[in-house]
């Protein structure tokens, strides 16, 4: 009985009120300084960073080439999964061998996990038989934040025109289990395949899984 009365009242007021009330009320929340998410198809954020050999690299100088960005932290178990199985190195050799630029970027702040000095970075590359074009340092995390890089590994592909064509995970199996690589679908390889066939990248945004990037919290 009372429920019916409620409904009738609701009906009477519905026409004028539903939408308004939806829009009305509720305090305005402040958004936390959020990531400026880069957009697929838009120009990739420009950057200039030093590498482990004292050379600087800017995205602009690679105009005309496909560029792969790999956010990394050698102590993260998810990164260890892809280096320990040589999965990452294989992809690096495969891509750089065909003229693609591979930039591994370390956004770990000093005193956080994954932060390394140049010598250690070069030693890691040598010991792990890694084959990136360069290992770049972003200790302030500015470039990482401009790309909305959240985890390691977080992968990005920029096409020859400088547009972002892929961002997300290395593959589709979000675990730390080394055995899973055998059955996982590698998104980066798939995206590169699409690109070389002149197709738009089918999975352009995927879930990046791993450890959080150890950003410098004071500069957020």
């Amino acid at each position, binding site marked *: 009985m*009372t429920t019916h009365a409620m409904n009738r009242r609701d009906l009477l007021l519905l026409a004028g009120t539903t939408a*308004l009330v939806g829009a009305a009320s*509720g305090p305005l929340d*402040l958004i936390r300084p*959020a990531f400026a998410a880069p957009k697929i198809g838009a120009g990739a954020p420009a950057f200039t960073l030093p590498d482990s050999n004292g050379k600087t690299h800017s995205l602009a100088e690679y105009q005309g080439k496909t560029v792969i960005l790999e956010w990394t932290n050698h102590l993260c178990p998810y990164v260890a999964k892809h280096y320990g199985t040589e999965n990452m190195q294989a992809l690096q050799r495969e891509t750089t061998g065909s003229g693609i630029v591979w930039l591994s970027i370390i956004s770990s702040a000093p005193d*956080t996990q994954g932060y390394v000095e140049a010598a250690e970075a070069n030693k890691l590359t040598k010991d792990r038989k890694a084959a990136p074009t360069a290992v770049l340092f972003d200790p302030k995390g500015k470039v990482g934040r401009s790309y909305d890089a959240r*985890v390691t590994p977080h992968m990005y592909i920029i096409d020859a025109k400088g547009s972002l064509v892929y961002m997300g995970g290395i593959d589709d199996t979000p675990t730390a289990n080394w055995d899973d690589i055998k059955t996982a679908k590698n998104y980066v390889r798939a995206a590169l395949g699409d690109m070389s066939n002149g197709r738009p990248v089918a999975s352009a945004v995927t879930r990046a899984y791993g*450890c*959080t990037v150890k950003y410098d919290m004071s500069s957020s």
Partner: protein
Amino acid sequence: MRRAGQAIRFPFLLTIPLLLALANTAAWATPVTTDHVTARLIPESAGVRPGGTLWVMLHLKIKEGWHTYWRNPGDSGEPPHIRWTLPQGVEAGDIQWPYPDPLPYGPLLNYGYSGEALHLVPLRLAQDWPEGKPVPIRAKVGWLACSDICVPEGGDFELTVTTAEGGPADESTAALFQKARARLPVKTGWTAGLDNAGDRIVLTVAGDGLNAGRIEKAAFFPYKWGVVEPSAPQTLRPAPNGLSLEMTRGQTPDSQRLDGVLVLTEALHDGPVTRAYEIAALAQSEKGAAAGAPAPASASGTGNAAGEAAAKIGVLKALLFAIVGGLILNLMPCVFPVLSMKAMALIRHAEQAPRTIRLHGVAYAAGVLSCFAVLAGLLIALKAGGEAAGWGFQLQSPAFVAVMAYLFFLLGLNLSGFFEIGGGAIGVGDRLAARGGYSGSYFTGVLAAVVSTPCTAPFMGVALGFALTQSAPVSLAVFLALGVGFALPYLLLTFVPALVRRLPRPGAWMERTRQFLAFPLYASAAWLVWVLSIQTGPDGVLAALAGMVLIAFGLWLWNTVRDAGPRGRLLGRSGTAVAVVAALALVAGLGIGSTPTAPQPAAGQSASGPKYERFSSERLAALRAGGKPVFVNMTAAWCITCLVNERVALSSAAVTEQFEAQGITYLKGDWTNGDPEITALLESFGRSGVPLYVLYGAGSTTPTLLPQLLTESLVLDALRDLSGKTKITAHTNRRSS
């Protein structure tokens, strides 16, 4: 009383990790201790009958500063996984995930658990499992523990249970399972809808008793990664018969559906109560989505299709929509009367020079446009500053809503002829007659635009949703197009004198029309007061209505002293000023959610669940005197926790059966509108509000107080214990010693 006091402590006891006792039972798995976690696999009971279900818990005790993850870990991380090795005839179900906590890490946000994580898994034993054959259970468990850094850990577990009747395990185990179940999301009968607008998604949930006014905190956790941006704020708003939660779309959005867990913290008299609810929201239908079309609006103004459309429509189309929308605004009950007066003034002064009339039209349009430009600028600035602002943002402030209600009331009174503006001219629309009244026309434009805003939200959804996702210049253009559409009809009248001549001649009809047009304005005022009732509850309504009385009184005073001497006039006008200031002061401090509306007494026959009688202390005393077992449920229509408890824990067939089997009389008290008898009982249990659940055993035993958050198994346990009352008391004593 002393007994009751002990029982109240019951929920707190649940939080103590009572695990030492577990080691004594040989069948139970050895705990696995890693650097950051101590993990146990705990069966709810030592035996399971063939054909029955045994609940097993993966319990992770997590080192301080570390956490593990929910099924969707959020920005990073990985949920625990269990790989079972089970004999033929035993089948493991999915992990039942307790609702997670948001775990911020810098700019990122994860969903997970700190302190401890309780994962329940059902194991079903086949009907044909041989009687007496032990059931071996083996599991390989892995989890990721993270603080600043992450470490994958894991271990192997082995345990064996019998096929003996699976009685409840010892109390600490029962308490742990109870605790886990209280954190599981419950199914509700609520309806959930999803709206998309640009990068925003709005979840709307409606259901009986679901009132946003009582909710202190709301958080939505999606099952799927990437559909909601974890770190973006979620804005809770009241909605008809429920609430809405505005969130930011994730990286891999799904505009069709949103599944997950809604965690609500309800402010009750005895403190906040948190509970999680399963949500399966589908995109709202396409009806009501077309821009500017006066179709029935969906709960939040823009349907899903509208959101999709917003993403697709081009700038030109958005501008067109905005102009059409602006045109339609002229017909809104908030605007039409004001505009009509303006048009009538035109008719009355049709003899004026066409140029003068045109200039009035231009001044009016300028007023409209500047008002829209200011609103657009404000929105763009808020947006740039990171505020989660949407159209209608001004209406989020109850004080603003109240002042708008005053404004409509005032305009209505003016049209009714209760008072005149400008000392005896013919009101709002008549400024045109005054010499140099262009500023009057300008401000009429401003006024018309201001009064239009409450009507704008539902109809402007698409165009404005689009505008707000665009660059500032495009946003501004869309808003100005809206203004152009809005100003167009009047502008047309002033520029094409032939049109004015087409309108009826001036005459007595104008006065009658004017008086009639007051009513849409009163209706608008009434509607805004209703909005207030949702935002602030009865207090805000009283403040606004009292304010209106004051305003009417002030106006009357103003009119009365018009012909008095200078001193009388000063006195009267001061009185008017005081009345108006008082009216504004009344509503200035209105906040959201002070008290919600309190509808629906809950008395009557519930659709399912045990039969109940209306509570009265007399009836309770009589039943107790007769030595009958009684269950008392004190509830209120506005208490979400109460209604959900009834739904998930008190309405089940098993509970109903137990009530009947034990001959328990179920008394339900409705505290929706207060009731001194109920208040007295609440106070006798040291409570200041609902819910209250008391179980009186047969005979003169002391009553058992159930916690505020019920689960079916908790109620069944309590009912089972009712007969063995002495045993319970002994346990309770041991627990609290």
